[in-house]
């Protein structure tokens, strides 16, 4: 965080029936509307059935890179919530809780408390205790002195589908809580800060951002199959695609999902599917077909902890090697990993663009934490967004005869024909073929076609030159860091923190992981670093392995040691954990040197 950045972390916790998620979303929505940057995190439970639910919202006056550490404010809806968090809250934290009938020993000395009878407010104002979560949110908003009118509007929207009565009751509960909160404003006066500006921002989850990106990029066909944590992408698109003339169909399985997308892609319609690890594993054969037939299709893989069914609601970055290498034989493909919710939007657009520009399958590697986290993003400027529209082969301008798979100097595909275009009829499929698409197994033709497909990868790598995100403190340093996906911003926050303590880093945080951004990586590896930290959420250090395989020479020449910081417990990295990984290595090295 930069010096002038201020942030506040609020945690909502209660029973699964308490409406915790609604509280968190309501609060976040209000903050986003008022111009704050918001970053949330919620834990979903392993099983459908109840237990404690937590929702954490961090608000700031500048963009946020992580969910933060322990909460400054805890809004507890039951005693368990206090017990869970008490040992961890920082000095001076505020705990807002309902009466527990007697003193609550769990409350730590170093915290401040505010007892409010949410239920009573709800019953009094809304006529039902069920609105106690909204009353509690009102208390918080009142304490922070955030705009009541904005909050009321948000409540209205939240309950719009439940009818006017319900909305009104909840508005009343909100107002009741708000008034109570206002009475205690002094409790938070020292922590309050205004937003940097009053631009209303979009508040989106990663899954929503992917879906929105797809829609924006022109995807009009989506076939999918439900799976945690990716289902929201198809659910959201099911509601929106018909409005723009597209459609979402729930297929019988993931194989059919991708097959349908491939059919639609052959027909010239931008198509996409989204799944998680088990689905990606099932799609591998068809991914190979898309690569061989050179059809543009986007597969989003919202990674979760594997292998197999693994832990469906938990975070991991364990599907990278499958995304990059999954297929018998060798196909051209691109793997892109968004790092933030904003990326989920922009990188999905990029994925669709690439798929069509290069006529290949593109895999977007999101992950569980990213998918369900809500974050504010700047409203997109539609004028500036680049959306690639394929120009199909034109029978009038030719060239004739139409060749679907010719060799080109730059490795780029030529405009393709799609059904309906006269004289463009060709056959595509998974067999090895000649330039026209007809089966051809002659050894020389085969070798040319293999080379042609590999050349595409070079063309793609070239197209991305200069786009890889670099972080450079400017100072001379031997320390480097690379990271990807949801771990990258946490890593960035970590090195920024370390910087203030005097440890300088150079970092490279690529979005495009395959083909690897060769030029950027080469110059990064040649920039003087000697130790390269690579934090990622898997057990076998997948990205580090790919890096070593493809940049063996550069690592050798620059005498760079790769230090993987891995974690596989199903939770995202906290900055503290990456920090620990860095120091563990440095201390060990130090000891070795001093021996």
């Amino acid at each position, binding site marked *: 965080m930069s010096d002038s950045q201020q942030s506040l972390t609020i945690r909502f916790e209660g029973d699964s029936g308490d409406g915790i998620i609604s509280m968190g979303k309501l609060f976040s929505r209000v903050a986003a*509307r008022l111009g704050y940057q918001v970053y949330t995190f919620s834990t979903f439970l392993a099983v459908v059935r109840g237990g404690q639910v937590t929702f954490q919202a961090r608000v700031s006056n500048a963009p946020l890179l992580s969910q933060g550490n322990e909460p400054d404010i805890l809004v507890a809806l039951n005693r368990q919530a206090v017990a869970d968090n008490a040992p961890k809250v920082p000095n001076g934290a505020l705990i807002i809780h309902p009466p527990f009938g007697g003193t609550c020993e769990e409350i730590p000395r170093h915290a401040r408390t505010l007892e409010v009878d949410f239920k009573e407010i709800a019953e009094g104002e809304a006529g039902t205790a069920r609105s106690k979560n909204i009353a509690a949110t009102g208390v918080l908003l009142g304490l922070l002195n955030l705009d009541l009118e904005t909050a009321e509007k948000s409540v209205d929207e939240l309950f719009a589908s439940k009818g006017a009565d319900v909305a009104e009751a909840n508005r009343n509960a909100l107002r009741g809580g708000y008034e109570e909160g206002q009475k205690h404003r002094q409790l938070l006066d020292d922590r309050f800060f205004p937003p940097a500006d009053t631009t*209303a921002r*979009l*508040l*989106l989850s990663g899954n*929503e951002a992917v879906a*929105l990106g797809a*829609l*924006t990029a022109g995807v*009009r*066909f989506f*076939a999918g199959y439900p799976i945690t944590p990716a289902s929201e992408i198809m659910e959201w698109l099911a*509601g*929106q695609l*018909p*409005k*723009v*003339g*597209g*459609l979402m*169909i729930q*297929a*019988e*399985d993931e*194989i*059919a999902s991708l*097959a*349908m997308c*491939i*059919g*639609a892609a*052959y*027909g*010239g*319609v931008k*198509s996409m599917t989204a799944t998680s690890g088990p689905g990606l594993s099932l799609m591998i*054969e*068809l991914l190979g*077909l898309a690569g061989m*037939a050179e059809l543009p299709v986007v597969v989003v893989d919202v990674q979760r902890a594997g292998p197999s069914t693994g832990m469906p609601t938990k975070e991991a970055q364990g599907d990278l090697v499958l995304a990059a290498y999954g297929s018998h034989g060798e196909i051209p493909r691109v793997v892109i990993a968004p790092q933030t919710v904003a990326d989920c939007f922009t990188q999905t657009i990029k994925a669709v663009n690439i798929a069509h520009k290069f006529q290949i399958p593109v895999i977007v590697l999101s992950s569980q934490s990213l998918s369900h986290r809500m974050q504010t993003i700047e*409203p997109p400027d*539609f004028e500036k967004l680049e959306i690639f529209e394929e120009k199909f082969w034109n*029978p009038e301008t030719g060239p004739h005869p139409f060749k679907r798979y010719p060799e080109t100097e730059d490795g780029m595909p030529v405009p393709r*024909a*799609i*059904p*309906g*275009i*006269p*004289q*463009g*009829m*060709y*056959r*595509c*499929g*998974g*067999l090895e073929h000649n330039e026209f698409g*007809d*089966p051809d197994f002659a050894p020389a033709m085969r070798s040319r076609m293999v080379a042609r497909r590999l050349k595409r990868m070079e063309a793609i790598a070239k197209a991305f030159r200069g786009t890889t995100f670099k972080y450079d403190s400017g100072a001379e340093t031997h320390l480097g860091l690379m990271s990807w996906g949801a771990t990258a911003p946490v890593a960035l926050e970590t090195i920024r923190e370390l910087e203030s303590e005097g440890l300088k880093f150079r970092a490279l945080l690529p979005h495009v992981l395959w083909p690897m951004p060769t030029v950027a990586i080469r110059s990064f590896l040649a920039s003087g670093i000697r130790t390269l930290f690579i934090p990622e959420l898997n057990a076998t250090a997948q990205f580090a392995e790919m890096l070593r395989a493809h940049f063996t020479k550069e690592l050798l020449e620059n005498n760079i040691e790769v230090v993987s910081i891995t974690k596989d417990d199903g939770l995202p990295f906290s900055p503290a954990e990456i920090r620990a990984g860095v120091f563990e290595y440095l201390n060990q090295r130090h000891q070795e040197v001093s021996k």
Partner: protein
Amino acid sequence: MSDVSAGAAATAKPSKRTYRGSQRPTWCAGCGDYSVLAALDKALISYGRPEEEITVVSGIGCSSRFPFFMNTYGFHSVHGRALAVATGLKLARPDITVIATGGDGDALAIGGNHFFHAMRRNVDLTYILMDNQIYGMTKGQAAPTSELGMKTKSTPYGTFEPPVDPIWAALTMGATFVAQTASHDPNHMTEMFLLGLQHRGMSFINCLSPCVTFNAGMDREYFKAHSRPLPENYDPTDYEAALKLVLQARRESFFPLGVIHVRHEPTLAERIGEIREIALKKSAHRTSVEEIIRQFL
């Protein structure tokens, strides 16, 4: 999706050979698939759509080589996935006539689930299955249609699984047009294909098409001897009668040839059209992406 410009449709009436590709079929001499190809060509000539508005989608197998021998758009996908690929194409491009072709293994073994769901969805496709009761391409293993006890390369002592009857499967899974024909009767085949093409919804046509190389026992003569036309007074719109007929045929070991069943029901695309209407009504008018995005503000 109407956004896709489909190019101006050629209007010239298709002549003989219009739909035949330039590649010579690579089937064995005597393979039943030759006459299926010829009959489809004829049916398409009567059907009369320009060749660029037709796409033939297949899986893998001898019969799945079809697209290569036709002068239309074609997609030789992977084993078992023809119907899923065809469904995606048809939904995305309802303006195109989509024909799926393949073998009994492709359709009912590895492709069984897509078969099941394509039938119930009533996608507007014409599916031509070349039923040779064997895996031709891989040189003679049992197909799901192989008769109980049949000796094949993979069942040296005879199969031990009761076979699937393709027309029974299509009929009970929900196809709205089910016909059976045989490669020894080109005119009948042509007629069935044409009816299938004209039917709105899932048209399933089972063609008895012998594999002379790996299932010599079930040749032209065998299929001829075991085929029967439908009874004079047969009413294909009577679903229960159709069920009865197919059960009788299985009991008495004959192949009924003709339109076994036909009924009219909204196609998948039509039902999706209704959904779109509802969606548009909700947003009062056709929305733009910008408007949709605003809901997150």
